C-alpha cells in the first residue's frame, strides 16, 4: 500500500512570492486540496483580495476575480447570484476583511450568501510593511503603533468569528490555526466542511485561520509559530462558533 503526499491539482505549479515560512502557502494548499477532493475545481470561481495574497490568482487553479480592498464578499455575491450552481469563495486577510471590508463581510453573512470565506488572520498588515491591523494584539508592536497597541487609544482587537456567529444568516463559522501539523490537518478538515456547506446550499460559511507573519512580526518562521501559539490562541480561541445541526 502506498500513499503519496504531493502537490494538489488545485494549485498551479509555480513558486509563490510569499516570504519564507509564511503560512499563506499552507492555507492555499488546504483550500486547493478541499476543492480538488470535492472535485469542483472546474466549477469554482475564486475572489482574490488585496493584501499579501493579492497574487493568489496566480496560484489557485480556478477562474479568479481580483477584488478591490475589502470588497471580495460583494464581488462574490455578484458572482454567486449569476452562477448559483458554481462554488464561489473569497480569500481575505485581516486588513481586507476586518478593517475596510467589515460592512461587506457582515452583510454577506447577514444575507446568508451561499459562499465560503477564508479569512487569514495574522494580526498585522503584511503587504504594506507591517502596520497595525484591527486584529493586532494589545501591546503588539507594529509600524503604526511603534510602542505597541494601546487599547485606550484605538480599542482592543476585533474577534471576527464571534462577531459573525451572532448573525442569523451565518451557517458555519470556525476558527482554526496552522502553527503545527496537527492544527494544519484539523484546519484542512474544517475548510473542507465549509465548502461542503456551500455544496449543500446551507448558507454562509467562514473559516478564520490564525496565521504567522514572520517578516511583520520580526521573528524567524519557526519562532513565529511559537508566538502564535503563545499569544494569539489565548485571545482568539479555536473552535466552531456556528454550525447547523443537519449538515
Amino acid at each position, binding site marked *: 500500500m502506498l500513499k503519496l503526499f504531493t502537490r494538489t491539482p488545485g494549485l498551479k505549479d509555480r513558486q509563490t512570492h510569499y516570504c519564507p515560512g509564511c503560512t499563506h502557502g499552507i492555507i492555499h494548499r488546504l483550500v486547493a486540496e478541499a476543492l480538488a477532493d470535492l472535485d469542483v*475545481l472546474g466549477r469554482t470561481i475564486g475572489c482574490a483580495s488585496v493584501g499579501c495574497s493579492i497574487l493568489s490568482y496566480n496560484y489557485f487553479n480556478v477562474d*479568479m476575480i481580483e477584488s478591490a480592498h475589502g*470588497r471580495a464578499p*460583494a464581488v462574490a455575491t*455578484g*458572482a*454567486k*447570484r449569476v*452562477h448559483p450552481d458554481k462554488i464561489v469563495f473569497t480569500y481575505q486577510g485581516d486588513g481586507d476583511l476586518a478593517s475596510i471590508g467589515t460592512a461587506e463581510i457582515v452583510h454577506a453573512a447577514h444575507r446568508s450568501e451561499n459562499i465560503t470565506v477564508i479569512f487569514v488572520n495574522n494580526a498585522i498588515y503584511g503587504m504594506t510593511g507591517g502596520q497595525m491591523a484591527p486584529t493586532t494584539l494589545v501591546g503588539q508592536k507594529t509600524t503604526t503603533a511603534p510602542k505597541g497597541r494601546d487599547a485606550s487609544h484605538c480599542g482592543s482587537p476585533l474577534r471576527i468569528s464571534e462577531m459573525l456567529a451572532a448573525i442569523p444568516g451565518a451557517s458555519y463559522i470556525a476558527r482554526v490555526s496552522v502553527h503545527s501539523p496537527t492544527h494544519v490537518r484539523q484546519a484542512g478538515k474544517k475548510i473542507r466542511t465549509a465548502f461542503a456547506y456551500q455544496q449543500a446550499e446551507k448558507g454562509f460559511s467562514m473559516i478564520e485561520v490564525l496565521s504567522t507573519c514572520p517578516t511583520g512580526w520580526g521573528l524567524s518562521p519557526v519562532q513565529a509559530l511559537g508566538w502564535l501559539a503563545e499569544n494569539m490562541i489565548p485571545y482568539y480561541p479555536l473552535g466552531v462558533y456556528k454550525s447547523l445541526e443537519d449538515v
Partner: protein
Amino acid sequence: MARTLMKGNEALAKAAINSGCTHFFGYPITPQNEIPEYLARELPKHGGVYLQAESELAAIHMVYGAAATGGRVMTSSSSPGIALMQEGLSVLAAAQLPCVVLNVQRAGPGIGGIQPGQADYRQMTRGGGNGDYRIPSLAPATIQESVEMMSEAFEIAELYRSPVFIVSDGMLGQMMEPVEFSSWKKEPLPPRTWAAVGHRNSRKPIIIKTMSLVPEILEENNKVLQQKYRTIEKQECRHELFRTDGAEIIITSYGSTSRIVKDSIEILAHEGIKAGLIRAKTLWPFPVQPFDQLAYPCTHVLCVEMNCGQMLDDVRLAVKERLPVSFYGRCGGVIPTPGEIADHVKTILGRR
C-alpha cells in the same frame, strides 16, 4: 404598440428589463427609488435577480462580480451614491467589463438636496475614479428618449466591454410622460469567452484583474483602453440641433434643462430673436463636430446648465475661441425658467 403614461424612473426600469437586464444591485437614494422598487417587483418575474446591497459601494462591486462572470447587469443611484461608486467604476473600466449605471442627478455638493441638478457632469465625463479611463455617458431629455437610450446603453456596454452611464436627473425621473416600448427582440448575446465562469477542466483558468506591477504591461493595458476610447469617440457621439440655421446665438444644454431652453427659444422667436440649441445627447464623447459648423450670423455661445458651469469647459474646448462663450445656470435644486433664460439671452445680445 400602445403608449402608456409612466413615471420616468419606472420607464427606465421597465426599459432595463426589456433590454435583457438579468441582474440589478442597488441601494435606495432619493430621487431614484422607484427604479429598485420596480425592479424588485418585476425583475424576478422575468427570471432576473434583484438584490438590495448594503451600500452603493457594495452595489458597484456586486455589479463587478456579476459582470465578471457574464451577467447583463445594471445599477442605479443618485449623485452622492455615484460618488461612492467611483472606486468600482474605475475597476470596471480597467477590467473592461460591460454594465449600465444610471445616475438620477440631484443638487450637490455633499449630501446636497433632493431636487434636480446637473452637477455631476464632471463626475460622469472626467472619470471620478482613479486612473485614465472614460465612461460613455448618454443624456436623455425625454422619458421616451430615456427608454431608447437604455437599450443603446446595454448594446454599447456589450460592444465595447465598458460601463455606460445614463445621465438622468430628478425632474426626468419623477415626471410622467406618455411612452412607447418597442417590442424588443431578444438577440442572442455574443459568447463572452472572457468571463470567469469556471474552467470545467478544459482550459486555463481565466483571471479578471486590473493590477499590474510591471509598468510596461500596465502601459500596454492603458493603450488598449485609449484605443477603445478613440473608437467610441468616432462612432458613438450623438447630438441634436434645434433651429440652429441662421441663429444669432447658440445655446448649449443637455437633459431636462434643454427642454426649458427650447421653450426659451420659442419665447425669443416671438420677439424676433433667432436662437438655436445644440443639445448634447452624449456627454462623453462630447459632440465637438456641430461646433465646427458655427457660422455668421451666430455671435455668441451660451451654455445653460443646472450647476455652476461644468459642460461649459467642453463647450469652450469645442468652440476654440472662435466665438465668446458664456454661462447661465441655477444650482442647489433651483430650476431655471424659460423666461429668465430668454431674458439673459436678450441681455447678452443687447436687446434689453
